[in-house]
């Protein structure tokens, strides 16, 4: 918990910014006095425990869980008072559970320690007194100058001072931080980039002021003060100067950098905070059942205590001459005695709440999640990625999803941009991939005309210049081929945005090739194979709020600002240009390009604005945004480009399946309405017969929001009977208007209700123009609506993280936009289409499995404990246990534990392929249907029935007679053993009856655990165990088995116990079949694929035959 304490320490001397002396050199006197701060060393502590505090801390954490605490209390009660069962019976399982968990956690922590040590001790190079010294990583202090070589990862957060490259840049891959494997460029501080030997670097005299550490990976503001000739020069520092711990240096021989955040204050460490835990619906019902059983337990104990004192009112019953109390007991106060009795009953019946259920559930979830990871159908060959399970706690929730919120770009679509066409002055030019540009362009004349147009020339250059694309040279080709013009194979473009790459590549096909950025000059190869050079003066980087980016370049004395962005962000800033020429086309993503010529005076002003904003330590982003706002104005429209984002493979099929499975699919995207709607049609979210309801700014401008909402709700509600298929489109602005808390009148609160009502009646909803936070808001809104539906959010980008975290189940797509979504999700899948198997197959199976697990656990413990309860009525309410201690202890942990665990891992009530083929089967388990109260009560009643059968069966068998052929009598332990034997067999057979998927493992485990029970019983009774102070079980089991009637009654009682459940199952199946049940027989276990649809349903074939057999049988009778 180093993180926590760190924060506390930080608060003591909290300052907004920190000051770092590079190389620990004091600043020259006369400068501002800085408050000296203490920084932590570069030790990473991810371990939770130390050697000394492991036992107390781990114990404390384990006993914080209610179940463990409950069993601890029971154990302590057993130790303190005289209870019917020995403390071992509850102590041993508890000890077992606690030990296993502790060992597991200890091992994990040991691994963490090992990893920590490896990290903390790995050698790094630090510059000291002009020499490079090897040091252990943990000894790096803030202010140390570190030398990092190629392919090494950064030991802490560093500010780049200089690099081996002339431009003072270096390439970095942050694959291990956010999964983006592309190389990113980082820049050295301009004034220090020349210092690239250790001597020179050591001579730098400067201080850095920067903000205190914060977890945002992409934000950093700071300032460096360089004292050259005692004249401080201040330069801004931004995230482009900050090398993050965990990233790796690439394509750069070495760099020098200064440590600014170390150890637990690095951004990486700050980012690995655990997420809040999500709980599944099954877990909630499980806890509800536990409460019910706790009540049953307490009432049982109370009833027995009361009855005991009623029965004992007669002193001859209380203390007959043959069974006297000890003197000390006699003197105890009646109330204390009653309380002790109550506790003793609690202890006797405590097994009804099984300690092992939690362990089994956890094992099931943990082991079960491997099936998702192993699944070959969810393996993406291209990426070589499999599904990843980050939290196995939610496996069964995958079977309960009612609402799916999906991102569009990168999730439904490939996010693999292709340049389709561009439009300049009304001319459309196509440049689709794979087609030669000459084929598609209107011919030689057109070419001439293109060349003529000055606008077009400018347009192409603008597209070639206005981007942040890097050129990566293929390293494998050695020095001979080193130019980009040598051939395509030697280089390719890299960018964080796929649109840009698509555009630059499109330009290349149209004749303008971007070569490289060299010495702040961008080089372009134009159609005449001439190299044009433009000096890159400023880059106004892209952000999702502005939705545009700009560059300022100088070309032969002329200054230009080129701006590129979404139409909505460009149009308002245009002063001339044919706006109406640019129109969004279906399914295409359009970007507008504009420019603005700058006079030198204007440029001066721009520089001033920018540097002012960049140097600011506080609110830098805000000031930058303001500066950008001022600079990007008075634009002249050049044209527009269209880029296509293709749908992901099988996206439409997946959406259709989800629809059929009864899920409502919502698309939440930041994209504009037309594009998004086109994607929705393409992905079959909207069909041709879907009636589209629009709730957009355009409509609310015409009518008031109030009227629109009421209009829509009227349409939806009045016609919903015959017009089932509605689609709703809403945009971000309108949504926030709907959700805005009431300002003018009170019925704005009801807007939300009306909106929800409309949504409920729509099969598909498209929300466009969404900010990331709005996505989360929508999810929250639906989560909180009155049915409390289970939501699932799926997305691939950083903008989806908030909704992924908000939804019940968050799924990340391992997409192109980095790994943040995948990292923050509960499950990560390579492609959207894998969602189908994830939900329809895995989700369904896990739900079936865990619900049976939960119900069965309660059932088998009712069967186990209820006979003990009944026995109390025949032993004078004396808390005499029916079963031997060993049976009490081992029932849950070994005799009946493995079959259910295995069942809950591999049960398939229906074939996987049927589940996939028929998505509507998913509706069968909707709304937690297998864990509803009626079903729970059925199981409980079944348990009570079985218990009654077992107990009274044995009772009547023992009733005042012998059942051996030698006339000898059996005692109470034989009675208990008989009940227990029937119990173990009945409970195991019940599970066997529920098993629909018998692999050899099931056979092995089910028969194996029965055999184990028999062998154990033989052994347990076969020897006088020297360590026991009683030998009550000696030969009891064998003597019982030597009697014929005992065998007969075991068979009879098992049959009688299982009978009602079988009958119930068969009758239910015949009269009220669920949708899954009839389809079980339709596909034979392993059908030849070609015949599968031709074959008649197996059930209809087999049944008449069986019927005949039974008819014959009955006739013979």
């Amino acid at each position: 918990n180093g993180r926590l304490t760190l924060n506390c320490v930080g608060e003591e001397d909290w300052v907004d910014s920190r000051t770092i002396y590079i190389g620990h050199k004091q600043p020259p006197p006369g400068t501002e006095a800085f408050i000296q701060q203490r920084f932590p060393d570069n030790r990473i502590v991810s371990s939770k425990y130390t050697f000394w505090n492991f036992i107390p801390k781990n114990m404390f954490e384990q006993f914080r869980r209610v179940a463990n605490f409950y069993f601890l209390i029971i154990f302590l009660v057993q130790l303190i008072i005289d209870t019917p069962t020995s403390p071992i019976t509850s102590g041993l399982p508890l000890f077992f559970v606690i030990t296993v968990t502790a060992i597991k956690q200890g091992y994990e922590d040991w691994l963490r320690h090992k990893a920590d040590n490896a990290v903390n001790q790995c050698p790094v190079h630090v510059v000291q007194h002009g020499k490079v010294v090897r040091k252990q990583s943990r000894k790096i202090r803030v202010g140390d100058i570190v030398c990092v070589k190629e392919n090494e990862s950064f030991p802490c957060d560093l500010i780049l001072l200089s690099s081996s490259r002339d431009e003072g840049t270096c390439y970095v891959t942050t694959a291990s931080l956010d999964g983006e494997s592309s190389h990113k460029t980082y820049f050295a501080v301009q004034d220090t980039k020349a210092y690239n030997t250790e001597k020179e670097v050591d001579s730098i005299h400067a201080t850095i002021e920067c903000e205190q550490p914060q977890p945002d990976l992409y934000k950093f503001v700071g300032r460096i003060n360089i004292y050259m000739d005692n004249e401080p020069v201040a330069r801004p520092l931004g995230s482009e100067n900050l090398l993050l711990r965990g990233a790796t240096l690439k394509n750069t021989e070495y760099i020098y950098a200064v440590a600014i955040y170390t150890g637990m204050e690095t951004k990486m460490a700050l980012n690995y905070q655990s997420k809040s835990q999500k709980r599944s619906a099954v877990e909630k019902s499980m806890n509800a059942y536990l409460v019910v059983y706790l009540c049953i337990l307490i009432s049982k104990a109370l009833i027995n205590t009361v009855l005991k004192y009623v029965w004992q009112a007669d002193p001859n019953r209380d203390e007959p001459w043959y069974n006297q109390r000890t003197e000390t007991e006699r003197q105890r106060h009646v109330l204390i005695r009653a309380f002790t009795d109550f506790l003793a009953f609690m202890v006797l019946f405590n097994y009804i709440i099984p300690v092992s259920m939690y362990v089994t559930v956890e094992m099931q979830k943990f082991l079960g999640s491997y099936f998702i990871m192993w699944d070959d159908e969810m393996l993406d060959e291209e990426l070589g990625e499999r599904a990843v399970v980050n939290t196995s706690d939610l496996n069964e929730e995958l079977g309960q999803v009612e609402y799916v919120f999906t991102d569009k770009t990168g999730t439904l679509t490939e996010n693999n941009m292709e340049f389709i066409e561009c439009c300049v002055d009304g001319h459309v030019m196509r440049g689709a991939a794979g087609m030669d540009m000459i084929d598609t362009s209107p011919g030689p004349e057109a070419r001439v005309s293109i060349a003529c147009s000055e606008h077009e020339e400018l347009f192409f250059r603008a597209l070639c210049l206005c981007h942040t694309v890097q050129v990566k040279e293929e390293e494998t080709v050695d020095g001979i081929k080193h130019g980009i013009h040598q051939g395509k194979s030697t280089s390719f473009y890299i960018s964080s945005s796929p649109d840009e790459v698509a555009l630059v590549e499109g330009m290349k096909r149209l004749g303008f090739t971007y070569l490289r950025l060299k010495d702040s000059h961008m080089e372009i190869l134009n159609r005449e194979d001439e190299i044009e050079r433009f000096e890159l003066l400023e880059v106004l980087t892209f952000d999702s709020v502005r939705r545009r980016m700009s560059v300022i370049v100088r070309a032969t004395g002329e200054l230009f600002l080129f701006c590129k962005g979404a139409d909505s962000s460009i149009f308002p800033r245009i002063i001339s240009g044919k706006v109406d020429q640019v129109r969004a086309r279906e399914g295409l993503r359009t970007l507008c390009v504009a420019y603005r010529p700058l006079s030198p005076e204007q440029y001066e002003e721009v520089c001033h604005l920018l540097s002012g904003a960049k140097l600011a330590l506080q609110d830098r982003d805000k000031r930058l945004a303001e500066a950008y706002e001022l600079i990007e104005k008075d634009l002249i429209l050049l044209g527009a480009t269209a880029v296509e984002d293709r749908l992901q493979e099988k996206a439409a099929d997946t959406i259709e399946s989800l629809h059929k499975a009864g899920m409502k699919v919502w698309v939440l995207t930041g994209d504009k309405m037309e594009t998004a709607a086109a994607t929705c049609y393409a992905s079959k979210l909207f069909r041709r017969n879907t009636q589209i309801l629009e709730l957009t700014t355009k409509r609310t401008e015409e009518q008031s929001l109030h009227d629109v909402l009421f209009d829509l709700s009227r349409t939806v509600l009045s016609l919903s009977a015959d017009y089932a298929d509605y689609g709703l489109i809403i945009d971000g602005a309108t949504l926030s208007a709907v959700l805005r808390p009431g300002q003018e009148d009170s019925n704005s609160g009801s807007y939300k209700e009306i909106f929800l009502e409309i949504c409920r009646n729509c099969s598909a909803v498209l929300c466009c123009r969404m900010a990331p936070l709005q996505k989360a808001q929508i999810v929250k809104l639906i989560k909180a609506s009155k049915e409390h539906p289970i939501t699932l959010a799926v997305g691939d980008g950083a903008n989806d993280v908030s909704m992924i975290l908000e939804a019940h189940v968050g799924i990340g797509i391992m997409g192109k936009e980095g790994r943040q979504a995948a990292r923050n999700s509960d499950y990560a899948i390579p492609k959207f289409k894998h969602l189908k198997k994830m939900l329809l197959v895995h989700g369904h199976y896990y739900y079936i499995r865990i619900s049976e697990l939960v119900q069965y656990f309660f059932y088998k413990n009712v069967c186990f404990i209820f006979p003990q309860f009944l026995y109390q009525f025949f032993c004078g309410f004396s808390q005499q246990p029916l079963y031997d201690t060993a049976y009490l202890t081992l029932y849950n942990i070994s005799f009946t534990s493995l079959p259910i665990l295995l069942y809950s891992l591999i049960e398939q009530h229906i074939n996987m392929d049927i589940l996939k083929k028929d998505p509507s089967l998913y509706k069968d388990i909707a709304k937690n249907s297998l864990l509803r109260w009626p079903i729970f009560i059925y199981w409980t009643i079944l348990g009570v029935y079985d218990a009654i059968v077992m107990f009274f069966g044995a009772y009547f068998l023992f009733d005042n007679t012998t059942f051996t052929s030698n006339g000898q009598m059996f005692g109470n332990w034989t009675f208990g053993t008989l009940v227990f034997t029937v119990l173990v067999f009945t409970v195991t057979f019940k599970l066997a009856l529920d098993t629909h998927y018998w692999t050899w493992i099931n056979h092995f485990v089910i028969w194996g655990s029965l055999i184990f029970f028999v062998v154990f019983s033989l052994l347990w009774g076969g020897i006088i165990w020297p360590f026991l102070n009683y030998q009550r079980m000696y030969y009891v089991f064998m003597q019982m088995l030597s009697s014929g009637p005992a065998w007969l009654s075991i068979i009879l009682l098992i049959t009688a116990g299982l009978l009602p459940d079988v009958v119930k199952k068969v009758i239910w199946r015949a009269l009220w079949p669920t949708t899954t049940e009839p389809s079980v027989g339709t596909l034979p276990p392993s059908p030849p694929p070609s015949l599968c649809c031709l074959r008649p349903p197996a059930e209809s074939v087999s049944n008449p035959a069986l019927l005949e057999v039974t008819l014959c049988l009955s006739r013979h009778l």
Partner: protein
Amino acid sequence: MMASGYSTKEEDGHITVSGPGGGALRGKKPENTAFKQQRLPAWQPILTAGTVLPAFFIIGLIFIPIGIGLYVTSNNIKEFEIDYTGVNMSSPCFNCSQNFSWNSTRPCTCSIPFYLDQPYENNVFMYYGLSNFYQNHRRYVKSRDDSQLNGDLQSLKTPSKECEPYAEHDNKPIAPCGAIANSMFNDTLELFYNDPNGTKVPIPLTATGIAWWTDKHVKFRNPGENANLTAVFQGTMKPVNWRKPVYELDSDPQNNGFINEDFIVWMRTAALPTFRKLYRIIHKKNNMVPTLPRGNYTLEVVYNYPVRSFEGRKRMILSTISWMGGKNPFLGIAYITVGSVCFFLGVVLLIIHHKYGNRNNSADISN
């Protein structure tokens, strides 16, 4: 929780050390087994009316004959029971039960005449039965020291705490200790056949073979193998309610001390408050003469055991035994019941199957 623990480990687990995706790479190429793909070959039985029907009829067909057999066997067993508690004034043992005192030195005897209306063949087993006697009371059940009974000398001198308050008397350890031993049944029952010519013929009763063989030979052992019992038990007290110490229970050394079979039988605590325990066996003489011929008998009771205080009853039972034990119609009836229920359900299911099964199938086909 367990799994989330693992996942946090992975997150914290220092990418810098293991190298990016070192673990992930391993996970990317697992060998593809049927188990991992959840496609193990499996038998997939389905419980439908069609599959269950034959099973029901078969169960019915098997259970009903077994039940009838058991019921007939049970009915053929002869059993005679007589209550000699002495609750009624008319009862011969009334006086004994009224004037009971623990301290009386002269044993009270009573004799009860009874008539067997049919001859008892083969071995006849003689039981005593007690009612309303809670041998299964927890305080009672645990009040014994098994290692003392197993002949452990240490436990003989220092009985287990579980025996309290029957562990020590006059500062001497009690052997055998505990409530069970202390309350051992000590009535003596003797059986006489009243010959038609007026003589009372004592019927020979065997006192061995009434306890489990394993109990007698393994679980119960006298302390100090083969030594003089009197000497071994020196320094211990007899249980408070006993008239004789444990080493004087029988003259036969193989049936004396802890391995006395009456004692062993008593020490096996009964499951229910009304129980019977095997007292004696009357072995058959030869095949010609019934073991107990029809006629008048007298039961001579040495009345030592008080049960009136807790409203208990004492009985003497004579019973013949079959392969399935004593007279108990329950198992037979239960088998017949379950068998018939199965058969009946089979018919019901047949109707259901006939009516609805076809409907389902046709629905399937139309789909």
